[in-house]
């Protein structure tokens, strides 16, 4: 069986700035705690949209790779 792979190319079709603005606007007026709660819910909703756990794992691996080493709260894998 072919394993689906994570899209790393641009999937925004020219609307990248609008998407980014949408993400920022989603957090307007929220406290840090509320923003964290919102992000968790977004992750759950988008994880369902992705569906395939293998793709999700690749997304998580990319996200963890991109963490800044200086951030003491986040251990590198």
């Amino acid at each position, binding site marked *: 069986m072919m394993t689906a792979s994570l899209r790393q190319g641009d999937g925004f079709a020219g609307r990248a700035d609008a998407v980014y603005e949408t993400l920022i606007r989603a957090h307007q007026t929220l406290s840090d705690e509320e923003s*964290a*709660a919102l*992000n*968790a*819910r977004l*992750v*759950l*909703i988008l994880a*369902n949209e992705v569906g395939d756990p293998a793709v999700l794992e690749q997304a998580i691996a990319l996200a963890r790779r991109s963490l800044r080493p200086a951030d003491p709260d986040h251990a590198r894998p």
Partner: protein
Amino acid sequence: MSHGLSQNPRFSSAPMHEPTGGSRRRPVVVIGAGPVGLTCAIDLATRGVPVVVLDDDDTVATGSRAICWAKRTLEIWDRLGIGQRMVDKGVTWSVGRVFHGEQELYRFDLLPETGHRRPAFINLQQYYVEEYLIARAADFPELIELRWKHEVTDLTRTAEGVRLAVATPDGATTLDAEWVLAADGARSPTRTRMGLPFPGQRFEERFLIADVRMKADFPTERLFWFEPTFHAGQSALLHRQPDDVFRIDFQLGPEADPELERQPERVMPRVRAIVGEDTPVSLEWCSVYSFRCARLERFVHGRVVFVGDSAHVVSPFGARGGNGGIQDADNLCWKLALVLRGEAPESLIATYDEERGHAADENILNSSRTTNFMTPKTRAERHLRDGVLDLAAEAPFARSLLNAGRLSRPCSLAGLSLQTPDPVPQAAGPRPGDVCVDAPVVDAAGRAGWLLDSLGGSFTLLVFAGAGAPDPSRLSGLPPGLRCVVVAGRPLALPGAEVLPGAEVLPGTEMLLDAEGVAGLRYGAGSCAAYLIRPDAHVAARFAEIDGQRVTEALARACGRSVTSAQEAA
């Protein structure tokens, strides 16, 4: 504390008598007369194997302990002749409801279709289960010796088997056994005595179990609350048991003081908060517990075999402990009987470790995932968990993420050594390794019954004959002595003795009528001509066409007679 309406029964046993005849060695000694040890003893006795059961106590379980018994367990107990008594006393349920606060998030039905003899679950206190198993064991006075107040004090593995030192009310004695089954529970003294590590994960969270007696109109369903309004903790669970007893399980958090929390003056306000002030309530039993998920690396150590909680423990959410243990017994006993009779090599016992080790891993995985969902350990985990709860009311996908316990289902043994690879993977029906599903059938005398009553016990070839009478030539060339059950799609005459003219196709062939067509559908009879069913009612192999040679090979493989060569071929 008392149980139910009466005091715990006390049992006594006469001094152990020396076995008569040649060998003084007992074929099988079971340590521990809990549900799993007793099920082992009865299963072995049904196969003619004499068993001594040693227990260091003289009564049944204190407190309700394990209460949820799954369909698969009931089917195993049916095979052992004690299922009906359990069901008659037990509280039958198949629906669970999950709440967040006061809001119902979703409802699930564990057995949404008809045409099964047994329900998804019954609730029955462990002390009743043990009492009924003890009564059933008494039906085999020539084969089962139950020895109360017999405590194993030492265990030595010898070339021929195992020697046990036993402290009895009449003094110390020794007992030689070919095989010892350690069914002595989560804190297994046998495991400790043999110095076996029990690696796993310990969970800090503490839970309170309260069994209360009351006349209350809670539905006969599994009710689970996240963040209940009546309890400050994270979750609560309610089950109805027989005798108007309810099990309420309160999540207390990791900081709770077990000694303090089990005091009735602490417990009763929690109970009152859920049942109200007006309902008369009495506290039957309570316990504060934490738990771990752990297993032995191997369940078979020479001639000592671990079954049930001595081999593996899980969290209680999912009812996978007791039900997993009963499936251990079901898996082991036919193999042990074949080995003792010299009909299978001793290596067959290694497949108990392979198959039930796989099941234990599955149970531990499910149970750990539930626990992780119920006890978020970081802020990030907490946000994800709360996100699932808050989304679940609106979005169906979040309901599948919601984990209030993944309830025990029979483990599939697909792909393991004893099973023959599936020649018809696209076909409906249980695949090699799956447990057989039930269906309504009519027997040759015209009586309505259940397919599972005709399967299990011994190896059986389940043949689907289609619409007409089966052609006897199709059943030639089968292994001698293999039991055949033929399911015919349509009667050729109704009613009366001539219902199934195919009844004489082969001596010893049992004929069943698939009167409602359900069996054929559930077994993909259009694509599958026959199934080879193991004595534990798991499918060993299935066949698009009946071929004596293939059936013979699959049977040899399922008996462990050609495991190695079959693995190489596969």
